[in-house]
């Protein structure tokens, strides 16, 4: 259903899809793919990254205020959309950084083509299946009480808490658009593509895998195993951060990316 959101903000048309796009800063392009909870122009990580890069942070089709074409139903569709986006904006030597669900999209992009990429950064990324059939690698947000999801997702649980009584109409609408789009793309298999792990060897750009040390949605061990499937990838923990290090430690998160790009 994904009803549209009324907005005075201008959307940018990319490959036939009108999306919300934050563009800020100068220098080498960094394409930031947000997690299932979306991204806001007021998030501190935007300001931090824009100091060192030309930051391009779209809302995925169906998320935030971005429109969703009816034919888009899989993460594969999103990956092809972003390949189109990099062509449409003629981005080259891109640092592609994906967060959680956005990390899954980033990995799906990189196995298809790294032609326009210089570096890949995956932070607390989902998308692969590691455990046995009776073991869930990723906490199921669709069967877990929201207060518990918040507790598991953040090093400091007070950061994620949302008050339903004071949330603005637009933020509430976006919250539920994001949930619905997440279900569309990641309902079952839940948050993974069974084929992805076997294709990660195709990624041949320098890759950094960052993980919140306190991530209880997807464990650092999952991150280490993810990293080990990508040739030459480096794995680094971010202390005092949970599933969203870009929110809890935006400064450290940015510094690690800047250092990684400058040394590799």
């Amino acid at each position, binding site marked *: 259903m994904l*009803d549209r959101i009324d907005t005075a903000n201008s959307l940018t048309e990319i490959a036939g899809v009108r999306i919300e796009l934050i563009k800020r800063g100068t220098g080498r392009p960094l394409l930031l793919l947000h997690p299932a909870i979306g991204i806001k122009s007021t998030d501190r990580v935007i300001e931090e990254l824009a100091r060192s890069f030309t930051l391009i942070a779209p809302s995925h089709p169906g998320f935030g205020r971005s429109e969703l074409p009816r034919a888009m139903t899989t993460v594969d569709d999103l990956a092809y959309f972003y390949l189109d986006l990099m062509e449409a904006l003629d981005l080259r030597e891109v640092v592609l950084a994906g967060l959680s669900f956005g990390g899954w999209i980033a990995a799906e992009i990189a196995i298809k083509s790294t032609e326009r990429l210089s570096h890949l950064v995956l932070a607390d990324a989902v998308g692969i299946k590691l455990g046995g059939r009776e073991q869930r690698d990723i906490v199921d947000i669709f069967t877990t009480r929201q207060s518990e999801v918040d507790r598991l997702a953040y090093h400091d649980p007070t950061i994620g808490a949302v008050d339903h*009584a004071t949330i603005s109409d637009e933020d509430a*609408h976006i919250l539920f658009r994001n949930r619905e789009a997440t279900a569309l793309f990641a309902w079952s298999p839940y948050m993974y593509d069974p084929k992805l792990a076997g294709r990660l060897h195709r990624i041949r750009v320098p890759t950094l895998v960052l993980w919140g040390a306190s991530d209880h949605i997807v464990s650092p061990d999952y991150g280490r195993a993810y990293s080990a499937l990508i040739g030459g990838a480096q794995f680094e923990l971010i202390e005092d951060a949970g599933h969203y290090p870009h929110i809890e430690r935006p400064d450290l998160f940015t510094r690690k990316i800047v250092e990684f790009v400058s040394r590799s």
Partner: protein
Amino acid sequence: MKVYSFSEQSYPDAWFDDAESLRVSLPNQHCDPEIASRLYNRYLDEWMLADELGLNIIVNEHHATATCMSASVHLTLAILARQTKRARLLGLGTPIANRNDPLRVAEEMSIIDVISRGRLEMGFIKGVPYEIVPANAKPVHVMDRFWEAHDLILKAMTTHDGPFSWEGEHFQYRSVNIWPRPYQQPHPPVWSSSSSPGSSRALGGRGYVIATVMTGYRAKAVFDEYRNGWKNAGRSQRAPLDRFAYMGFVAVGKSEAEGLRRAELVKSYLQTNTLVAEPYKNPPGFMAASDAAKLYQRVGWRGPSHQMTTKDGKPLGSAAQGSVADTIAGGLMFAGTPDQVYDQVVDFYQAVGGFGHFLMMSQAGQMGHEDTVDSMTLFAREVMPRLQDFHSAAQLAA
């Protein structure tokens, strides 16, 4: 008017006072197969009595819940197809968007229709939000999947020179050719349920029977929207009353006190029916994001609650917390002596614009066998004939 006897085939022995959820997540260690067996057989006996009393039968299904042990409309109807003689057999319904295999739905329904010699009434439903998780059905685009399954089932039932192939968005088959084909031609009557204007209009456009379940006086708006959909589809005649069905509780006694005592027992359904753990209440995409957002702003993650109003639109509070008197005033419950029950049904009928099918929840919650049998018998003998006369007169006047 056709009257149907309904029970959710519940398992009240697992209804704990402190249970957070009777649905989805209540472990089945609380189900004693001995008790379950006794209950299933008892409920089937009550439907066989309904058949003897001249009542019709309605069967439903839910999943992973102590509130309803019928996990398959088709299984229960298959038994009743053979065991009963006269009753129309309404399944309301089969959640076809949650089924992986609509072809199997077409096959099983055809078998039920053939064994019962054409007594099947075929209900297709979207289902309740909290069964998205146990069905593992993707909640986004659920109605697109619903209508594709519907189209395939009807094509399978009405194609007699098959096989045909189907390559849709949600379902793909290389060879569809069901045996048997249904007994009723071209196919058994189609029903669906609705409590919202949008889906009522869609059903009116297709001319299917619309059932609204314990919606109280909101049933009028639901039926009116159906009529709009019916008219917008280009029909010149008004929608006949046999397109409308209402479900409410019925508790009849020889005395008012006995009827009201039984009403207390069936009302326990309302207290337990909505005991669902928070994450399952409002799955993403099941309702439009804008509506889900408004609900969230109002009540957080608690999900929707069933609010009752009087005939004049005055609020009566939530159905789960209401007294028997409130549920009677809200049009959810018809209880008391046969005279009182007749008056209440007629009053409600007139307020909502009439209906040709009355789906009575004659057993619910903790109401035991003796009470159920007596209440059902009183209704069939002392209320139903008068109600049918009243309805015939209303139809003539319309």
